[in-house]
């Protein structure tokens, strides 16, 4: 609320929106939707992107914006993206991978 009040046109916030809370889906704990209109209601400009697409994120940051309004970018993400056995599985909010699992993820991500 203070950022639009101070007309912080040089401030950008990125929301990693993975739709999970600690114990369940956000919609079944405390729903955050509608995310975009909430930010707008608080005086921010808001853009939505695929949080796994760097081109979209870069474009959202760089494309022209209002000069005296802070910008929120809602990045829609999937928790554990890219690791087949972790994707969208909230157990990984708590677990640490074993050495074997680390190797598997590295291999899936093309890191080894």
């Amino acid at each position, binding site marked *: *609320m*203070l950022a639009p*009040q*101070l007309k912080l046109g040089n401030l950008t916030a990125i929301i990693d929106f993975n739709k999970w809370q600690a114990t369940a889906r956000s919609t079944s704990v405390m729903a955050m939707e509608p995310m975009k209109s909430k930010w707008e209601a608080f005086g921010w400009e808001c853009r939505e992107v695929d949080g796994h697409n760097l081109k979209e994120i870069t474009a959202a940051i760089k494309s022209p914006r209002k000069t005296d309004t802070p910008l929120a970018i809602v990045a829609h993400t999937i928790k554990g993206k890219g690791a087949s056995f972790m994707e969208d599985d909230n157990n990984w909010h708590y677990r640490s991978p074993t050495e074997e699992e680390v190797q598997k993820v590295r291999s899936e991500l093309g890191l080894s």
Partner: protein
Amino acid sequence: MRNAFADEITQLAASNRQLVMLSADIGNRLFDKFKAAQSERFYNCGVAEANMISMASGLASCGLKPVCYTITPFITARCFEQIRIDVCYHNMPVVIVGTGSGLSYASLGATHHSLDDIALMRTLPGMRVFAPADSMELRSCLRAALKDPSPTYIRIGKKGEPNIFPSPPDFKPGTWNKVRSGNHVSLLAAGNMVPVAVDAAQILESKHISVQVFSCASIKPLDEQCLVQIFDNTSLTATLEEHSLIGGFGSAVAEWLSDKRSQNKCYLLRFGAADRFLHESGEQDHARKVFGLTSINIADKVIQALGKIK
């Protein structure tokens, strides 16, 4: 004290380009001179104290010296996590000033009483806690707080407190100012209890009991040299504070005694607020009576304790 704060901070801002003032929608007209002189360096953050503290930490990380100001419970208890993590964990040079501390706003009810702020703030690693006795000592505390790059909490009263010091006294973190000399009893008072301690000392003096009084504005760190002298040379020591007896200044002195002087017989009395909310409404004097924080009660209790020591 709050007028002296506004005046001192305005003067300090004139020579310190890094100083930035943040308030949480309080002090109507109090900062008019500051705003007139430094309009770019005053932010009214609204009634959103947690955000104000996080913002101050961000400003400090950019090399600025933020000073945050509002009513004590709202700038301590309400935003404790932001002070703990955003300010103290990063050891940011943020100065947090709580006004109307202790029972200063007694008539406004328990929401505005602050009997837990010393306890909260002094548990935080790296945080210094100052409680000046009057407007003059407040000026000294403020100057000292801005000198070092450590987080600092300053607990001040409201307005119209009696003057103890004729001019800003010497003040260094970890040193206390003696405001009255004596050799039998030591009264260690924090903040706005110093005038009460002086009154109690006069009552005791009239009964031929010699009393020294210290303004213990530096609650964290304590003045350990002074404590050694006090417990070596006087028979009885009492702490006075407008704060809960749990976790405050008296607790800090008791902890010091337990850690450093367990082999000696040391007589310590602690005066402060009991472990309960004050539900009844009344002015500061009334609230002090309820908690036994009057010069007469303190003098009586000291006399009783001296009788037991003999």
